[in-house]
């Protein structure tokens, strides 16, 4: 038994063995999606809800065939929604699609260039979804006051960005994240901006409860190897956070005892 066995991510009362949540977009094909998800060890995977292609062969394999809801917690998102109305409507369809499934990822975007969240629409959608019985994990900007407000509304996880979606810029806002983490009573997960394994580790060392990523894995030259790297980074960062890092000092502090040196 290792320390990690009991250190579960708990969202809306349900424990998950992995603190790495992965998206399923931008992969080459469903087989790569499946392999990368497996290599990441993620238990919660996001999906988008879109119109079917009428006329296309419906016998094509479906995402939910390779990532069956019996094995993974499917987290439908509202990617591409720019209004609270569209987001609520999308997630109501998702609930029907997934047989009453309540855990969802809310994101309401406000700008096509930055994909920054429209926080006014996000707040409105969050209120409506919570009132409608959803467990809402919410993508938001890194504003600590907004995070608090979303928690007060009843969101089950706060998911601030670390940098713009898909930018791979890494953790650009560690003090904001720290402020959010220290004040939140629900899990805080970095959602968006991670570029490589060290970024994920930094998020976890700051005390984040998890990281949700897609492009950093799917866009890597070898997505399956990067998924593996992210899994290790999340575990290492979490362990380091729990272990407690040493304080930073300006000058050296010898590792070997001074007493008993010869001469």
């Amino acid at each position: 038994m290792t320390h990690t066995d009991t250190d579960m991510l708990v969202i809306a009362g349900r424990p998950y063995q992995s603190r790495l949540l992965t998206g399923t977009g931008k992969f080459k094909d469903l087989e790569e999606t499946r392999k990368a998800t497996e290599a990441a060890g993620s238990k919660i995977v996001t999906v988008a809800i879109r119109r079917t292609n009428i006329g296309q062969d419906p016998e094509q394999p479906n995402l939910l065939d390779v990532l069956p809801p019996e094995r993974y917690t499917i987290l439908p998102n509202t990617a591409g929604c720019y209004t609270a109305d569209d987001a609520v409507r999308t997630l109501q369809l998702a609930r029907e699609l997934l047989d009453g499934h309540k855990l969802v990822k809310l994101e309401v975007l406000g700008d096509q260039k930055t994909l920054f969240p429209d926080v006014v629409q996000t707040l409105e959608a969050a209120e409506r979804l919570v009132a409608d019985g959803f467990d809402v994990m919410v993508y938001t900007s890194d504003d600590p006051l907004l995070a608090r407000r979303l928690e007060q509304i009843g969101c089950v996880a706060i998911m601030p960005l670390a940098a713009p979606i898909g930018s791979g810029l890494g953790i650009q806002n560690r003090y904001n994240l720290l402020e959010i983490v220290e004040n939140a009573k629900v899990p805080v997960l970095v959602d968006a901006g991670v570029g490589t394994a060290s970024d994920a580790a930094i998020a976890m060392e700051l005390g984040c409860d998890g990281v949700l990523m897609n492009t950093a894995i799917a866009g890597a030259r070898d997505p399956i190897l990067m998924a593996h790297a992210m899994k290790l980074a999340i575990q290492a960062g979490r362990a380091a956070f729990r272990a407690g890092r040493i304080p930073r000092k300006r000058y050296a502090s010898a590792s070997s005892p001074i007493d008993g040196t010869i001469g």
Partner: protein
Amino acid sequence: MKITLNGESHEVADELRLDALLESSGYANKRVAVEINRQIVPRSRYSEHQLKPDDRIEIVHAIGGG
């Protein structure tokens, strides 16, 4: 009669029920959700739901996304 299916106009038989539309589109027993005129139709009611002229029907499924 004319209906709008996922944003495109389609000519279908009068008196068509939703389950027959899904069947003919290849979505029988597939994991989809259906909205008609912005109202979700639960799976349990597909067989009794009668389509009407100018219905706006959305059939959605889950695809890869982050």
